[in-house]
């Protein structure tokens, strides 16, 4: 057992990677699901152990293939990456527990094992992005996760899923290629791809034009991947038409991981001084973030499909996270990381609940689900808990996010930002109320009389995720301790 611990950083990525082809070979949906669940549960366990170890003993470095960095690929786990690993792996596992019933309903029969293969590849990619300490390796994992998510989205039942996946493919590839250009320019100037090595070499040449161009390309590329307004156009359709499990998993993790890479590049590699003093990253992030908060929420209010509504709400929430990053203070980065975590919980719970409704009535249109509150009481409980968390009501995880965000804004003497945050939260109240009103206070739609509660295998993970929203609103020790520690680490710019 003790000889296993030094190998954990590799196993974190390689176990899901190894399980993905096994799913194809398994050939049967049930068996593939079991393999996927086992791999993803192991990944969660690994992430938890890594998080514990890094929090107590400091950063772990792993040399892939025994090649010393900076020549070989280095995997680096510090509290910031462990935090993201834990989020991605645990949500991935929750959604997998939830998946069998919804896959049986939504994926064409005979394709289930391929669905789980793609799902695991997506998980591998996202975990890999978080753990690697090599700039080019980030690109590779980014593409692994993106390509598999395009395929997953296209598996959605409606034909619009195809156009949504195509649109995402075009936008996502442009984003990833921009990132590739940036990494290429950095390699040209420094001769290294290792992040820690880049960090020591960039200050000497930071005013050269290729480095400036590299920074611009990387920021824009990642903003595209993270769906920062106005580069969010791929997101609403992709989340609305993907299979339920994919929506839940991607909404909770995919954009968050891109934001994490943005944090890494801005603070660790280029350094906050370069990005915020030499270059106007503050305005570049702040203005789109504020627009995202309002445009996302406004668009959400007018949606007739709840999954699309939640997708637009994601655009707004990404605005909050970017806003916190733009503050470039310790409090700001802490708030960003906390919101990355909490927003993952909210959106996973809400999209899972929408999957439950879709399982029963075959639609997520708001007028089709009128009056279901009495027939599906537990699903509705999850929606209300997730919705309250989205608003930021006290005793929910969302409140903790908003609280830290407001504090960070006040610390930077930006009281007008606080006003904007509160105003945009009011808009969230409008669209959350629309869902609640439809579910509890509208006359039931004819034909929905026989609808019962969703099956337990779907309901349980949904309720657990919703419960996590409440739990992390009360007991905030773990996420806050990790986020503060990670923010310290990122801002000190120490080699990790």
């Amino acid at each position, binding site marked *: 057992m003790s000889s296993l611990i030094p190998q954990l950083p590799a196993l974190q990525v*390689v176990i899901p990677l*190894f399980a993905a*082809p*096994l799913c194809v070979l398994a050939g049967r949906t049930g068996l593939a699901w079991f393999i996927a669940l086992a791999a993803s549960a192991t990944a969660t366990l690994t992430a938890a152990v890594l998080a514990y170890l890094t929090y107590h003993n400091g950063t772990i470095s*792993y*040399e892939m*293939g*025994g090649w010393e960095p900076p020549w070989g690929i280095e995997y680096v786990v510090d509290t910031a990456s462990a935090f993201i690993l834990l989020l991605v792996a645990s949500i991935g596992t929750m959604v997998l527990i939830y998946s069998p019933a919804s896959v049986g309903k939504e994926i064409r029969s005979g394709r289930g094992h391929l669905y789980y293969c793609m799902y695991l590849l997506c998980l591998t990619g996202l975990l890999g992005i978080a753990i690697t300490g090599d700039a080019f390796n980030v690109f590779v994992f980014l593409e692994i996760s993106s390509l598999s998510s395009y395929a997953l989205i296209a598996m959605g039942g409606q034909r619009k899923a195809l156009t949504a996946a195509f649109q995402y493919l075009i936008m996502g590839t442009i984003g990833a290629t921009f990132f590739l250009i940036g990494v290429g320019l950095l390699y040209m100037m420094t001769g290294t791809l290792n992040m820690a090595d880049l960090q020591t070499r960039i200050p000497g040449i930071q005013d050269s034009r290729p480095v400036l161009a590299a920074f611009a390309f990387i920021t824009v590329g990642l903003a595209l991947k993270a769906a920062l307004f106005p580069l969010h156009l791929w997101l609403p359709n992709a989340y609305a038409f993907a299979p339920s499990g994919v929506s839940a998993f991607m909404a909770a993790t995919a954009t968050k991981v891109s934001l994490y890479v943005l944090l890494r590049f801005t603070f660790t590699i280029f350094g906050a001084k370069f990005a915020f003093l030499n270059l106007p990253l503050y305005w570049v992030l702040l203005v789109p973030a504020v627009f995202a908060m309002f445009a996302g929420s406004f668009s959400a209010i007018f949606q007739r499909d709840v999954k699309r509504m939640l997708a637009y709400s994601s655009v707004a929430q990404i605005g909050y996270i970017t806003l916190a990053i733009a503050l470039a203070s310790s409090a700001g980065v802490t708030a960003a990381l906390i919101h990355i975590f909490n927003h993952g919980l909210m959106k996973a719970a809400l999209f899972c609940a929408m999957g439950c409704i879709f399982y029963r009535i075959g639609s997520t249109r708001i007028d089709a689900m009128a009056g279901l509150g009495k027939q599906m009481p537990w699903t509705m409980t999850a929606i209300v808990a997730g919705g309250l968390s989205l608003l930021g009501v006290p005793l929910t995880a969302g409140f903790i996010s908003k609280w830290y965000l407001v504090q960070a804004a006040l610390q930077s003497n930006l009281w007008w930002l606080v006003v904007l945050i509160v105003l945009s939260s009011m808009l969230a109240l409008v669209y959350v109320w629309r869902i609640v009103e439809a579910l509890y206070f509208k006359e039931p739609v004819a034909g929905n009389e026989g609808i019962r509660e969703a099956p337990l295998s779907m309901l349980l993970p949904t309720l657990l995720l919703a419960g996590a929203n409440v739990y992390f609103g009360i007991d905030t020790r773990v996420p806050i301790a990790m986020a503060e520690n990670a923010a310290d680490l990122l801002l000190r710019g120490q080699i990790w």
Partner: protein
Amino acid sequence: MRHHRVLRIISKLLIPFIMLFALYVQFHGDFGPGGGFQAGVIFGSAFILYGLIFGLEYARMVAPPAIVTRLVAAGVLIFAGTGYAGLFAGGNFLDYGVLKSDPVAGQHLGILLVEFGVGTTVAASMITIFFLFAGRDR
């Protein structure tokens, strides 16, 4: 294209050499330019040429799609399995040096296995992509 005698005979002659060249690129990759990616594409192209000239049904008989799809997965497993072998032999993941008592021989063995996995996956994916696109009846 069943009535194009020249095409059929020439491709019959060519296909073995294409495959042989693929194997050369595959296994000479340790010493010169080449490797699994290139070899896989060349190997796959032999099957694709066969499919183009003799028809898709025959190509499917030679390389049944169900097996080819499994080969895509098997190649990845060979690659990852080599990585795990390094891990179990006491090194890091993908550390081939520990596969044999002599690190250089270990490196040789490791890269050979990994490239074989890559070649299998690439060839099988190329054939699968061809089958999928050519097999659409519209």
